């Protein structure tokens, strides 16, 4: 269970999150929507522990453990996965090697042993196939020379292999054509289970046609201002933020 209480976050001295409260139980899928600059990405970075995101107030706990005390890799070990809006390129490091290092680090963090090479290979190939990724892509350096769609697909393959208990997906659907969007939503739906929870940050309602959330939150000016079920998203699509009484720059 993820519990965020009264979270205030500053970036470069400027307060972006101004008291976010959010509780997610296992197996739940939540969507956060909101206008530009509402603080959606900041929330995802703060949960995962990126440098430069200063927590000035509030708590974030996951399964009872204080996440804010942990390094990003420890949080990953606890089961957190961040789907990046702009996945990073790492020249010279093959996808395969990267994934194996990541998976084994997480296993070791949880007190387990490295996955045998053969088993790992099988796992990755299977996941790549499920998500329709060419096996050749696995040998290529992480995200280097990938198109926007390929990068997002790669994020989904990584997520499938690492099998996180909490996935935070930061605008994973942005800039995708309809085919790529289906791949991404397919990836998310495959992860969905009574054990795993998913937090989707998105700009558009269309992803929610493919991945139906249990809760929809609307964020504006660093706070969650409205919470509802999936009909809230449809409402928003029809009426717009202004129609719901939310101004783009609530400040």
């Amino acid at each position, binding site marked *: 269970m993820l519990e965020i209480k009264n979270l205030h976050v500053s970036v470069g001295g400027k307060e972006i999150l101004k008291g976010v409260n959010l509780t997610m139980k296992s197996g739940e899928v939540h969507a956060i929507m909101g206008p530009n600059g509402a603080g959606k990405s900041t929330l995802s970075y703060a949960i*995962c*522990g*990126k*440098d*430069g995101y200063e927590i000035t107030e509030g708590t974030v706990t996951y399964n009872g453990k204080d996440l804010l005390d942990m*390094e*990003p*890799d420890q*949080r*990953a*070990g606890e089961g*957190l*996965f*961040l789907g*990046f809006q702009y*996945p*990073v*390129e*790492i*020249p*010279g*490091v093959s996808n395969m*090697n*990267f994934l194996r*290092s*990541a*998976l084994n*680090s*997480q296993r070791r*963090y949880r007190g387990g042993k490295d996955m045998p090479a053969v088993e790992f290979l099988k796992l990755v190939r299977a996941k790549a196939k499920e998500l329709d990724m060419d096996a050749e892509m696995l040998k290529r*350096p992480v995200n280097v020379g990938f198109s926007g769609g390929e990068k997002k697909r790669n994020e989904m393959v*990584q997520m499938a292999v*690492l099998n996180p208990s909490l996935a935070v997906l930061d605008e994973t659907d942005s800039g995708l054509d309809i085919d790529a969007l289906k791949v991404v939503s397919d990836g998310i739906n495959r992860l969905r289970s009574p054990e795993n929870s998913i937090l989707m940050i998105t700009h558009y309602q269309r992803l929610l046609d493919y991945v139906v959330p249990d809760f929809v939150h609307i964020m504006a000016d660093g706070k969650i201002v409205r919470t509802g079920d999936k009909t809230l998203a449809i409402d928003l699509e029809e009426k717009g933020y202004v129609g719901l009484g939310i101004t783009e720059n609530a400040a």
Partner: protein
Amino acid sequence: MVATKEAQQTVEEVSGEYKYGFVTEIETEKAPKGLNEDVIRFISAKKKEPEWLLAWRLKAYAKWLTMEEPTWAMVDYPKIDFQDIYYYAAPKSAEDGPKSLEDVDPELLRTYEKLGISLKEQEVLSGVAVDIVFDSVSVATTFRKKLKEAGIIFCSISEAAHDYPEMMKKYLGSVVPVADNYYSALNSAVFTDGTFVYIPKGVRCPMELSTYFRINEANTGQFERTIIIADEGSYVSYLEGCTAPQRDENQLHAAVVELVTHDDAEIKYSTVQNWYPGDKDGKGGIYNFVTKRGACRGKNSKISWTQVETGSAITWKYPSCLLIGDNSVGEFYSVAITNNYQQADTGTKMIHIGKNTSSTIISKGISAGKSQATYRGLVKVLPGAENARNFTQCDSLLIGDLCGAHTVPYIEIKNPTAQVEHEATTSKISDEQLFYCLQRGLEVEDAVALIVNGFCKDVMQNLPMEFAVEAQKLLGISLEGSVG
């Protein structure tokens, strides 16, 4: 030149008197500290060298005395007292020379095992023939018999002086002249051992040849000399690994390596240099002042240098290629990592002389801690080198804000048909890359090692398999404590 002549005369006058007497007087396994003609005679006598070689050494010594230590490299170290160094040290059991592995002092073998290069293991598992230089004397040479069947000569340089004097006379100093630089002159005077390889016409050497250098004795300079000749149409891959135990003092290592390829021949020379770099406060460590040069004398011949430099307090090293034969090819692939107080000034020279010659330079420098890494390179195309091609890529990566990374390339082109390209970049590991790896669960040091390995990939993939794994681990070890 007058001084040289005088010295030469002195040498000739004196040599008669001391020819035998000196050796019997000194029964120790070390030559006395310091450098003078007597020490050179002692070394030569110990090695039972022919007269011509002693004369050659003394001439080199006379030359060395007239030379000055180079100061142009971006390295900074206290002046070396060349009289405070032992120029010869032999392990006790080496007096008679081991005939096979069984003859080797088990203590020595255990030391090697610690280094992870168990001879037996290598013999059995990897099929690598190893010529080990322990301090100054070659203690074991394996697989020699098998190589001999193919007509390949793989022996210590002292043996070569006895057994193949004509070849030695022909090639010794033919690529790196005695007076090429201060340290090559010093090496020519006092070299104690090293490796001699000859691959006959049309022979593709059936295994990777390997030498493991190690400096053991305190205050011992290691001055090995390596000569590799690849005759027409032959091929050899040679691996050189270097390591040294921890000592507080700085030890000097001044080797000379000479490679020659004839028509259609190829030499691939790989080095993993892991000499003791000194401790984290910059105390101790090896001074690695090495001259390595290959001459592509034949047409269609090729020399390829690959180096992974992680050790030594100071590295001063420019493995180079003289591309003389038409269509000859020179390559230089380098990874140089410096951490703590290490300083490395390394690179290459590609001299295009023949027609249609081409060269590739890929250099990856990584600096961490308070270290300084410099790439220094020369690409020169002479007027007769029609259609010469060069591509150079120099990338530097900085880890931490107290280190330095420098790129000093020289490009000198005297033929219009040349196509020469040089690119260089300097950057740090981006925060985004690091966070991406951490988010996926990697620890900081693993993430850095992973990113650095990726950064070096273009070079690492040129290493033979056995070395690649070791080198990859070394990258991680070398950078320990550099982040965080």
